[in-house]
């Protein structure tokens, strides 16, 4: 079985995002999530409250254009996580995840 790990370039060397690739992958959420959580969530797995699919957070779809970060399930497009940063706070809405499982090792 092959394990393929992928990453959209929009957040690799070219941090200024081209307009033609509005969607990123879950790696793009890592920085903002690290403002809320001590462990790195992108290596963890989330179960979508919409359709029950479980995936690596790094493999979810991220829409991140200005106002905040909306992390969606690739299977059903449902919102799994939302994160917004205001000057003094970080807002997290995880209602779209039934569970988030993170490795206990570090």
């Amino acid at each position, binding site marked *: 079985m092959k394990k393929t790990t992928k990453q959209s370039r929009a957040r690799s060397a070219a941090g200024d995002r081209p307009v033609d690739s*509005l969607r990123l992958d879950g790696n793009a959420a890592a920085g903002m999530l690290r403002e809320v959580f001590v462990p790195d969530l992108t290596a963890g797995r989330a179960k979508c409250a919409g359709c029950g699919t479980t995936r690596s957070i790094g493999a979810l779809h991220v829409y991140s254009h200005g106002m905040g970060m909306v992390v969606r399930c690739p299977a059903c497009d449902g919102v799994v996580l939302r994160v917004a940063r205001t000057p003094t706070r970080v807002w997290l809405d995880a209602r779209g995840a039934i569970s988030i499982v993170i490795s206990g090792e570090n």
Partner: protein
Amino acid sequence: MTPISRGFRGRRQPEGAAARLPPGQYETRDFPVLSAGPTPRTPLSVWDLTLRSPDGQSARWTWDEFVALPREKITVDIHCVTKWSKFGTSWEGIAIDTLISAAAARGVKTASYVMARSDGGYTTNVPLADLTNGKGWIAFNYGDAPLPPEHGGPARLLVPHLYFWKSAKWVRELRFMENDTPGFWESLGYHNYGDPWREQRYAGDE
């Protein structure tokens, strides 16, 4: 202490634009696309628009019925909370006043607050008073062409005196509410009202 990045200016506005710009905004000639999800592409044959009373009474227009209502042309400046402003954008659409009058004839009663709901699940809340008396439209042409899907086509709410996230793309329903309820961004740290001239960007501003 935040160090200054020598020689970094970011996207700055040209001189002269200042008076027309709300605080903290810069002028852009582009039309940036911000999206919280995939772009819905609802065929016009199944598209409809609904106005709904608090009691559940509703009025519905198909696309053909909707575009047959009296139209207005609007030229306005728009201001996005991510700090770009675009001057002199031209739209064509149906005034919310027109829709409310037509809906009233079908028994739909208004209330003090409105929740706009879009294809893809996006929502935003606006006081009724900010949509009526010529302050709000549902726009379907941009420039002289049909509004492209990435900018909210076939039709989007247009409330230009508030930050542009209130001008919900892909709008399908206006629901009147007795009590104010926060929408998608309003429940995630953004300001409930969003007046660019008072720089009401975030919850707690003002």
